[in-house]
C-alpha cells in the first residue's frame, strides 16, 4: 500500500466503539440451499457505525454486502454473532432504521403522496396531517407536483425520490441503503447522490450505504469499508475519506485527493473483484 494517509485494514477486528449506533460483531450469515447444504455468505464480519457517520460498504458482486445490511435491519437473523443497535441486542426488525431498497418498494396501488403519507399513518398520525407532511416531503425531494401520480407513471429516479421521502418522513435515527441508485443511469445517480447529501447534511443521520460503485462510495461517505469476495465474505478494509464537506457528488470526482484515495482503495478491491469473477463461470 503506497498511500500513507489511508490505514487500510485497520480496526477490522477491534471491538466496537462505545458510541456505536450499529455494531455487528463476528456475524455469520448462512442460507440453506435447495439441495440441503448450506451456503455461508458472510463469515466473521465485524463493523460498526457511529452516530452522524456516513459509511459506505463496497465489494464485488455476490459478496454479501446486502446480506450484512439486512442483518442490521433485522430482516435476516445471523447464524452466529451479535447485532447491537444503540448498545441493545437487536430482536426482530430494527425499528430505529429506515431502509431504502434497490428494487421497487413503493406500493403500486398508492399514489406517490399516499405512499409517503402511509409511513406516518401506520404510526398513528391522522390522515390529513400525514398527507400534509407527505406533500412537504415530496416538495423537498423535488416532486411537489407529482403527488397524484402512481409509481408506474414515475421514472426510475422519481421513484427513488419518493422512496427517499417515504423513509425520511419517519425521521429514523439510522438510514440503511441497499444500492439504492444501482438501477439508475450515471447522470441520475450523481443527481440523486447530491440530493442525498443535501438531505443528510441537515441532521446527519447515521448511514450505512451499500454499493458496488467505488467512486460513488468515495464521493458520498466518511468511511469506506471493503468486503472480500464471497462465499465466506468479511470486511477486509476500512478507509476514512478525508475530503471536506459539503461535497458535490459530481465535482468531487475531479478533486486530486479523490484520485489518490481511489487508487489506494482500488488496489485492494481489484484483487477481490478478480477473485469473485474467477468463481463465477462465465
Amino acid at each position, binding site marked *: 500500500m503506497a498511500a500513507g494517509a489511508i490505514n487500510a485494514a485497520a480496526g477490522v477486528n477491534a471491538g466496537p466503539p462505545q458510541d456505536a449506533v450499529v455494531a455487528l460483531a463476528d456475524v455469520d450469515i448462512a442460507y440453506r440451499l435447495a439441495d440441503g447444504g448450506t451456503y455461508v455468505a458472510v463469515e466473521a464480519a465485524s463493523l460498526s457505525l457511529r452516530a452522524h457517520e456516513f459509511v459506505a460498504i463496497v465489494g464485488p458482486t455476490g459478496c454479501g454486502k446486502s446480506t450484512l445490511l439486512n442483518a442490521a*435491519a433485522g*430482516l435476516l437473523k445471523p447464524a452466529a454473532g451479535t447485532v447491537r443497535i444503540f448498545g441493545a441486542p437487536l430482536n426482530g*426488525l430494527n*425499528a430505529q*432504521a*429506515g*431502509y431504502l*431498497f434497490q*428494487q*421497487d*418498494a*413503493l*406500493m*403500486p*396501488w*398508492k*399514489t406517490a403522496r399516499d405512499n409517503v403519507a*402511509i*409511513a406516518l399513518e*401506520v*404510526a398513528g398520525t391522522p390522515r390529513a396531517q400525514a398527507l400534509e407532511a407527505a406533500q412537504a416531503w415530496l416538495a423537498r425531494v423535488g416532486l411537489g407536483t407529482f403527488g397524484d401520480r*402512481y*409509481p*408506474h407513471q414515475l421514472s426510475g429516479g422519481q421513484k427513488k425520490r419518493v422512496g427517499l421521502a*417515504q423513509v425520511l418522513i*419517519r425521521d429514523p435515527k439510522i438510514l440503511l441503503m441497499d444500492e439504492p441508485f444501482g438501477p439508475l443511469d450515471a447522470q441520475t445517480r450523481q443527481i440523486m447522490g447530491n440530493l442525498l447529501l443535501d438531505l443528510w447534511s441537515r441532521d446527519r443521520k447515521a448511514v450505512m450505504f451499500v454499493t458496488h460503485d467505488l467512486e460513488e462510495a468515495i464521493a458520498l461517505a466518511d468511511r469506506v469499508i471493503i468486503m472480500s469476495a464471497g462465499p465466506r465474505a468479511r470486511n477486509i478494509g476500512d478507509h476514512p475519506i478525508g475530503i471536506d464537506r459539503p461535497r458535490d457528488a459530481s465535482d468531487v470526482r475531479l478533486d486530486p485527493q479523490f484520485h489518490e484515495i481511489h487508487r489506494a482503495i482500488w488496489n485492494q478491491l481489484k484483487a477481490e473483484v478478480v477473485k469473485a469473477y474467477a468463481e463465477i463461470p462465465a
Partner: protein
Amino acid sequence: MRIGRAKLLGLQALVAVAFFAIWHVGSSVPIGGVYFLPKFFFSTPIDVITRVWSMFAGGKIWGHLAITLWETILAFVIGSAGGVLVGFWFARKPLMALVFDPYVKMINALPRVVLAPIFMLWLGLGIWSKVALGVTLVFFIVFFNVYEGVKEVSPTVLANARMLGMNERQLFRHVYWPSALSWMFSSLHTSVGFALVGAVVGEYLGSAAGLGYLIHQAEGVFDVTGVFAGMVILSAFVLLIDWLVTLVEDRLLVWRPQSAAGQN
C-alpha cells in the same frame, strides 16, 4: 399494429354482414333446387330478427332477462366472497392449503354440469339451484386468483412495508388486500362470464323462467327460430355485461400500467 378506429369498426361490421348474407342466401335462395341451409334446421336471419323484436315488443322477455341477471349477480357475489375468504385463508395458512390441495383440485376438475341435478334436488327448481351452479364456477376462479395474489406480493414491497412499521393488520389492509383485489379484478371478465354460464345452463336443465328456459322450451318444440332468437338475446346480454365490467375495471385499476380493459 396500428389500425384506425373507423376502419376497425368497418371490418368488424363486414364480418357480420358477410355472416348474415351467407345465412340469408343459404336459407332462402334455392341453388339448383336445393337450400344449403334448410329453414327447419337453420331458420332465417329475418325470421330470427323479427322474433327477437316481437319478444321485446310483447314484453314477455323482460321478466326472463331479469331472472337470469339476478341469478348471475347472486352467483358472482356469493362465489367471489367465498373465493376471497378461502383464498386469503389458504394463502396465510400454508398448512391448510397443503391439506386441502388434493380436494380443491378434485372438485375443480369435476365438470360442474353434473352437479346441476344435485343442486336441483337440494334447492328446487327456483333461482337458488342456478345460483349454486354459478357459485361453484365463480368460486374457483376467484379463489385461485386471490390465493396467487396474496402469495405473489413482491417481497421487496412487503419488506419495505414491514420496515415502515406496519403490523399484521396494516399489512393486510395496505399490502395483501390491494394485491389480492388486483388479481381478482384481472379475472373479472372471466368470473362474471362464468356466473352467467352457470345461470343459463342451470335454467336450461330445469326451470320455469330465464333465458336458458326460453331456449330449452323452443328446442322442445323444434322451434329453431326461437332457439336462435334466444341465442341472439343472450349474446347481446353478454356484450352489455362485459361492457359494464370494463367500466368498473377502469375505475378500480387506475394504478395499473396497462389494465386489461385498456387493451380491448
